[in-house]
């Protein structure tokens, strides 16, 4: 209980600290408005050329709202990899270990606090743009509740991925290269710009098995087209991905910290 309160307070402090970056967050969010406008124009042409009123099972308004969610999630991702990379390369990690905190749990709390603020602002701006361009889509309390279940798991999953990328600094000069490749993978295979259902059928099983889909596509789909079947499927995939990622983080951190305890910061 005490431990939960302690990490909860770290998240709260991170959220408050992030409010100081209002300018930066607003700038990033304005970028989101530009992206959404461009995609709106693009999808309008695609839908006009298509004989179907739905593409990948989504109507034009649903498509734009899907993009609002996936973009809001992706752009709210804190630079965890960069923090871990800095901790390792500057020796700051050694200082952090002097405190009675779990290194992973502390970063997770900070990331969640920071992310909630960024996501809320992104969602607000994205919603305004979507409302102006395509209007509202049908929503229900149960649909929003299901979205609220899938979204935090997506955040946790994204954290573990970024944290793993950061830990690569134990073996590489810098984690920046790995981070660049990893983020492109999340964008492409997570369904950020295009719903995964648009990809060739042969790729579908692989794309849905990869953890990236659970980070972006799952919350995006759940927001625009919620169902209990989708919730069950998403949670199952997210659960497997979280267990897999957490296990990897545990193993990599074990090896990395053994290196630290042996060779120093």
């Amino acid at each position, binding site marked *: 209980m005490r431990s939960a*309160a302690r990490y909860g307070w*770290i998240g709260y402090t991170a959220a408050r600290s992030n409010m*100081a970056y209002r300018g930066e967050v607003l700038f990033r969010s304005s970028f989101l408005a530009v992206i959404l406008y461009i995609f709106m124009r693009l999808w309008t042409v695609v839908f006009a050329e298509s004989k179907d009123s739905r593409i990948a099972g989504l109507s034009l308004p649903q498509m734009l709202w899907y993009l609002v969610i996936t973009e809001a999630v992706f752009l709210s991702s804190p630079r965890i990899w960069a923090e871990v990379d800095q901790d390792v390369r500057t020796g700051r990690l*050694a200082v952090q270990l002097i405190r009675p905190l779990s290194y992973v749990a502390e970063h997770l709390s900070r990331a969640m606090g920071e992310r909630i603020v960024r996501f809320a602002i992104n969602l607000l701006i994205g919603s305004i743009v979507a409302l102006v361009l395509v209007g509202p889509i049908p929503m229900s309390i149960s649909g929003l509740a299901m979205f609220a279940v899938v979204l935090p798991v997506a955040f946790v999953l994204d954290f573990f991925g970024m944290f793993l990328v950061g830990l690569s600094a134990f073996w590489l000069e810098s984690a920046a290269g790995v981070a660049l490749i990893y983020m492109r993978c999340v964008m492409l295979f997570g369904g950020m710009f295009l719903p995964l259902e648009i990809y060739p059928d042969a790729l579908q099983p692989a794309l849905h098995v990869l953890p990236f889909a659970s980070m972006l596509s799952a919350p995006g789909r759940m927001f625009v087209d919620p169902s209990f079947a989708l919730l069950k499927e998403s949670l199952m995939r997210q659960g497997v991905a979280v267990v897999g990622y957490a296990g990897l983080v545990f193993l990599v951190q074990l090896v990395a910290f053994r290196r630290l305890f*042996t*060779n*120093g910061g």
Partner: protein
Amino acid sequence: MNPGVEIRALTKNFVLTRWSGFRRRVSEIVAVDGINLDVPAGQSVALIGPNGAGKSTTIKMLTGILHPTSGEASVLGFIPWRDRRKLAYSVGAVFGQRSQLWYHLPPGDTFELLARVYNIKRLEFIRTRDLLIDRFNLGPFMQTPVRKLSLGQRMRAEVAASLLHRPKIMFLDEPTIGLDVIARQELRDLIREWNRNDGTTVVLTSHDAGDIEHVAERVIVVNHGQVVVDGPVDAVRRKYLGSKILRVQFHGTPTRIAIAGVTSLSDSEYEWKMQVDTTITPVSEVTAAVLGAGAVADIAIEDPPLEEVIARIYSEGGKEESS
């Protein structure tokens, strides 16, 4: 009374792997070489030495971050590398160049967070926080974001934050680095005062001779992973810091002077740099003589650099005990 620090034959070797083409070369570096030390509870100790001497490695082992190759250590009754989490509740640490304060929030917010991190009871937290605000004069900037504080104010808040859970032992690594003379002196006084009043054991590392003289009662010089000198600061100062560097600039060509215990380090037409052995001639006498030698434009009295003192310690025969 807490048991302080006990170190027995503590050794740390680092394995260094280098690639030469496709050939892997493995070498071993001895960072800490069988150190034996006892630091009683409440003592204030300066652990000094040149870069790469083994100070940081020793401190990292004492805080449990590094595991030793061999030997034993006990900090407050805990084996640091085995009981790191438990020990963390009784340890405070300040690293001059690494802040634990939240940059965009006022120091008060970091204090609130630390109260939860260290499970400090609310009443106890408020009492300690108010005491620290009073002693460290933090009141005027407790609600100002850290990014807007001067370095001196930030370091005062930094040290206060690390004392919030009333640690039994404090590790201070270059706490005054980058501070101006006044801020440096203020911080030294505060650390010393807390050590005396609260009985907190202080382990300080610094390259600043002033920090050592003002904060520590005992100095331990480490080099090549071994304890080279260990004794009360006064005794070591008398023995090794018994000299001052005098730097004088003249408006015109000065008259030559010869004073016992004064050695010229560099000498140009308008500028003298000399080392004064204060055990032979007090620096005040030398200053008076210099002022009479010509029209002085500028004069500065400095302590010899610590590296010079350490170099001197070596030139006088390696291992010895001053106590």
